[in-house]
């Protein structure tokens, strides 16, 4: 009998596992996939290392910082700052037609850019920042207010509003069109006030440290062990049944599989289940024959949108939406003399899960090639054209995301309705990770910590 069974060895499940194992709980993490990491995993292909999700670790804080999400999670997991080896970004931007706002890990750059391009919004930006610094993310009551409505109260220029929403929604909005204000505050802080960084070795360094720690504390990790059913008796979870029929008992179950998926595994009727998310992505990874900076591209991340209005919704007319996207170069971080072996550009677009799923195997292969070209062509409007220099490529689609995470609709940020307190209708079944509400690498780690602390480390 386990104290806690954790479903999923993504970042949130591993973080929760470390907390529980550190305090001598008997804990087992069950992962359906052959490897750990979930949405933020890594793989090797044709002799090259690839990251699945990683653009940048948000919530950057320099060594020695004692406040903020990163410092908090390092303390809680007993890691040293060096264990994540975060290297800060070179500089990023939000690019709309005719206007570009640059930003980096020093918020003053963004303030100066806004002051230069939107002089009458300078004080309004201050107002907004004061409001979101005060926002307490554990106070769930205000979480769901409309960001578009609240933002209009401080930022009176509609174009600037769209330019602020673009990166914030791209990096963590599960809802279409509008965004929960609580989520907006968390994401704005993590991107603009804290910032981006990356370990030279990519996400694998962080994952390896997490799993090594978990095991050294006596935690059990079982790969290729998908959970097909959560056994419920008298309104309580009593254990799980694996895909191969094996049954395991536990006093508590903590699931990072998503709220809709977890309720389904618990036998909840579909009508009673919350709405799954709709936002999914394709990501094109172009390996180049030279470094991006040799093509004149020096930025870390460019969030682009080709009109004055930013559309954050499942694509309506086509299988993907090339109007807006995120261009990331893992080369453009301030590595001290170190270089990555290849020049890489990763470009993300919004995609329609259903239409990607309807394709036959041949159509799927063709669609990937077609959209790889379309993506790079779209990006070439905002960064130097790299199409002549591509020597290798990979792409993942909503289907890949679904295969890696088993999230309905390949929904990257999960369901729109978050479970901030981690509870479900069953007293000893909890949710962590994406559908608890904190997304991103730092967010999901904190989510696992928070839910473990609140519900699973007590005396019960």
């Amino acid at each position, binding site marked *: 009998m386990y104290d806690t069974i954790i479903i999923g060895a993504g970042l949130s499940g591993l973080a929760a596992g470390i907390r529980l194992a550190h*305090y001598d709980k008997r804990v087992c993490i069950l992962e359906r996939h052959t490897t750990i990491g979930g949405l933020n995993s890594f793989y090797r292909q044709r002799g090259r290392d690839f990251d699945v999700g990683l653009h940048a670790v948000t919530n950057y804080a320099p060594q020695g910082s*004692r406040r903020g999400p990163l*410092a908090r999670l390092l*303390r*809680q997991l*007993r890691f040293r700052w060096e264990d994540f080896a975060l290297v800060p970004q070179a500089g990023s931007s939000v690019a709309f037609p005719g206007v570009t706002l640059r930003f980096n890990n020093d918020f003053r750059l963004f303030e100066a850019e806004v002051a230069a391009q939107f002089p009458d919004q300078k004080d309004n930006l201050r107002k907004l920042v004061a409001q979101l610094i005060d926002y307490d993310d554990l106070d769930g009551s205000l979480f769901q207010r409309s960001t578009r409505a609240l933002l209009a109260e401080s930022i009176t220029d509609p174009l600037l509003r769209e330019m602020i929403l673009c990166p914030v929604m791209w990096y963590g909005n599960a809802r279409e069109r509008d965004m929960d204000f609580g989520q907006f505050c968390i994401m704005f802080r993590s991107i603009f006030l804290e910032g981006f960084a990356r370990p030279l070795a990519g996400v694998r360094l962080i994952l390896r440290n997490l799993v090594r720690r978990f095991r050294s504390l006596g935690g059990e990790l079982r790969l290729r062990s998908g959970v097909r059913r959560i056994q419920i008796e008298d309104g309580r979870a009593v254990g799980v049944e694996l895909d191969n029929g094996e049954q395991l008992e536990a006093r508590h179950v903590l699931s990072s599989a998503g709220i809709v998926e977890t309720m389904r595994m618990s036998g909840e009727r579909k009508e009673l289940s919350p709405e799954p998310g709709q936002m999914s992505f394709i990501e094109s990874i172009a390996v180049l024959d030279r470094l991006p900076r040799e093509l004149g591209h020096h930025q870390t991340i460019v969030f682009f949108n080709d009109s004055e209005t930013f559309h954050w919704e499942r694509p309506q007319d086509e299988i993907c939406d090339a109007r807006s996207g995120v261009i990331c170069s893992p080369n453009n971080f301030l590595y001290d003399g170190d270089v990555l072996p290849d020049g890489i550009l990763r470009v993300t677009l919004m995609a329609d899960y259903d239409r990607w799923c309807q394709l036959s195997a041949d159509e799927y292969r063709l669609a990937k090639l077609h959209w790889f070209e379309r993506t790079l062509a779209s990006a070439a409007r905002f960064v130097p054209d790299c199409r002549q220099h591509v020597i290798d490529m990979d792409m993942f689609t909503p289907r890949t995301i679904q295969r890696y995470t088993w999230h309905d609709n390949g929904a990257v940020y999960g369901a729109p309705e978050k479970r901030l307190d981690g509870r479900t209708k069953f007293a000893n079944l909890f949710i962590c990770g994406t559908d608890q509400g904190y997304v991103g690498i730092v967010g999901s780690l904190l989510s696992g*910590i928070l839910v473990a602390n609140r519900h699973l480390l007590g*005396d019960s």
Partner: protein
Amino acid sequence: MTPVEIREEILDILSDIAPDEDLSALQDDVAFRDQVELDSMDFLDIVMELRKRYRIQVPEADYPQLASMRSTVTYLEPIMKDMQRVS
């Protein structure tokens, strides 16, 4: 354990929870939270570490007694006087 040993043990716990803090100048009569960057989650870790290392259960009602080094040692002294250090 003597009060001095209990104090050392608490320092050890603090340095485990907040490895980047300089604890050498910690003042015993000043609240931890006014000297060390600890939020409520970290504070709970002091309680949890006491339980992990010494099987001491601090009921929630007694948490205020763990506000400063002095009050913590005073609170723990009767509980820990017959115990041996484990770390």
